[in-house]
């Protein structure tokens, strides 16, 4: 098991290097020169040239890449060409906690809603409620979340005046963004849970449990659910990726100053250093979550897997 954990963690290294290379090249190919932005609109070519030299933009690409990597490893992702603030400070002092909080709430919503819907649906297979819930799940899966966010605002904030339109921090400000973020994940988890539970319920050991005289509740909650939930762990990990980009939309619509909004602001302001930093941090986060999920899956699944 330890070997597996170490190997899985080592696997992330080439992926992270690749990610950093892609991010670096992406920024390098981007039109608009960071030196010009740094030097200011009024700068003449000579000043820009000095800036380029200072920023190392005249060095060979490979040299620039290694400089980027070695600085990133020491926790230096450069400074924003717009605000002049350190990228690391901007992300971790101001933005990260908010997006992390949002993502955790979104995941919780997705898991709780998804599990309840999936379990109810599977236990009442082919009933009216099952069909209805699966239809709801299909809708949740298909609804564009930017539209959902605005519909929620129109209904609960504009029409009913129950909840604030924008912002983050107060409890009532968190409800709509969390819902927006959690719904598509809930739909996916609901469908997955239902399918897995139905699959498990047709297994031989469920028949054994029934033959022992176990009641339906024990059959489902003690014997079936535990086995059905193992594959759902993987989905939760993958959903986290959707959540991170969902945060871009959610934060944009609800004007929440998290990492998602930072990415969008940086793109519109062509703040290349900031884009580079945030995209890198978000991707590293995603790679890390996936590694953790894989390891958890393996730990939980050990008993089943070995035969």
């Amino acid at each position, binding site marked *: 098991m330890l070997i597996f954990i170490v190997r899985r963690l080592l696997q992330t290294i080439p992926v992270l290097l690749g990610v950093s290379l892609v991010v670096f090249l992406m920024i390098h190919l981007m039109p608009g020169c960071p030196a010009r932005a740094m030097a200011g609109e009024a700068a003449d070519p000579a000043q820009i040239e000095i800036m380029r030299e200072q920023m190392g933009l005249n060095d060979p690409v490979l040299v620039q890449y290694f400089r980027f990597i070695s600085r990133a490893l020491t926790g230096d992702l450069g400074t924003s060409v717009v605000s002049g603030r350190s990228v690391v400070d901007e992300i971790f002092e101001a933005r990260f906690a908010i997006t992390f909080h949002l993502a955790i709430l979104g995941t919780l919503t997705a898991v709780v809603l998804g599990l309840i819907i999936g379990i109810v649906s599977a236990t009442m297979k082919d009933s009216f409620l099952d069909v209805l819930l699966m239809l709801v799940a299909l809708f949740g899966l298909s609804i564009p979340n930017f539209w959902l966010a605005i519909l929620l605002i129109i209904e609960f904030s504009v029409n009913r005046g129950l909840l604030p339109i924008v912002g983050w921090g107060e409890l009532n400000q968190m409800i709509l963004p969390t819902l927006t973020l959690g719904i598509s994940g809930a739909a996916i988890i609901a469908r997955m849970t239902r399918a897995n539970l139905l699959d498990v319920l047709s297994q031989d*050991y469920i028949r054994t449990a029934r*033959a022992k*005289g176990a009641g339906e509740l024990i059959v489902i909650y003690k014997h079936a659910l535990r*086995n059905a939930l193992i594959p759902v762990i993987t989905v939760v990990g993958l959903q986290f990726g959707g959540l991170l980009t969902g945060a871009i939309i959610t934060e944009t619509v609800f004007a929440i100053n998290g990492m998602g909004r930072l990415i969008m602001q940086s793109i519109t302001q062509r703040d290349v250093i900031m884009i580079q930093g945030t995209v890198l941090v978000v991707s590293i986060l995603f790679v890390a979550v996936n590694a953790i999920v894989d390891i958890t899956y393996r730990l939980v699944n050990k008993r089943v897997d070995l035969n």
Partner: protein
Amino acid sequence: MEKDKDIVLQVENLQTSFFTEDGELKAVNDVSFSIEKGQSLGIVGESGSGKSITSLSILRLLTGTTGKIIGGKILFKGEDLTTFSEKKMQSIRGNRISMIFQEPMTSLNPTITIGEQIAEVIRGHQKKDRKSAWEDAVKMLSGVGIPEPEKRAKQYPFQLSGGMRQRVMIAIAISCQPELLIADEPTTALDVTIQAQILSLIKKIQRRSGGALVMITHDLGVIAETCDAVAVMYCGKIVEYASVAELFESPKHPYTMGLLNSIPSHETDSEEDLYIIDGQVPSPYELPNGCLFAPRCPYAKEICQNALPELLNLYGNRLVRCHMQQTEGRELEHDRWKSPSGS
């Protein structure tokens, strides 16, 4: 009748059908048999003969399938199980009637320790706390011949071999001293050497407890080893019923003869002597009008194609479903069963 007191299970005209998109599938079609205390009855047949569905019907374990009991009675100690509520059935299952399944590899829950899987039944049916139920579970494990039962009880199914798992299944089944034990192909999935051990364990347990045993199998060898009486099933119907000794001595139904002749034995070890029943089991959706076995029967006459023979009581409790026995009552000659390539 005083004999009635000892009857544990009496199945009367049981009919179980599956309802699929392609129509009704009569898996068990008018099956009757009974079994007394201390007796062991074998039900033998090919796959698809309805033998397993019969056993699942008795325990009403058709949940999650399209199968339904559509007729007949299942009298257990005189009470009709088909009229029981689900709740009442739960108090019977694993307690007074238990079942051992074919696939020990998949019949145990992979995420629960085997000790808990046994203790769970005990707690479910007897008023015992966790600790004493666990102790009982360990005792059951040692009772079915599992070494180091304390250690094994804490393990998960994947840590046990197939034979060990089947022993665990047996321990689960007998943990509440059931009056009726149904074993559905308990050895089919196991290695030959393990098969003999498991069979003798089941036999030993049945002798010790004095309960009734229904042994479901496709293997007449298993029947010979473990049973007193035997019912032969074909396409959802019983075609012959006899004591084991009589069945092996003088089979009356051509199908039984075919089955017996297709067992490889030590005396007839040349390949030519191994017989094969020609043709295939008919599709359950398109059963023949007459005798179900007629299309494959070397003795079939015109009447066999047109009318379904009744289950005829020859004498005592010696039953056979065959026109030949009904109309002529004479011994059929065995040598009509030739291997298809043998002539």
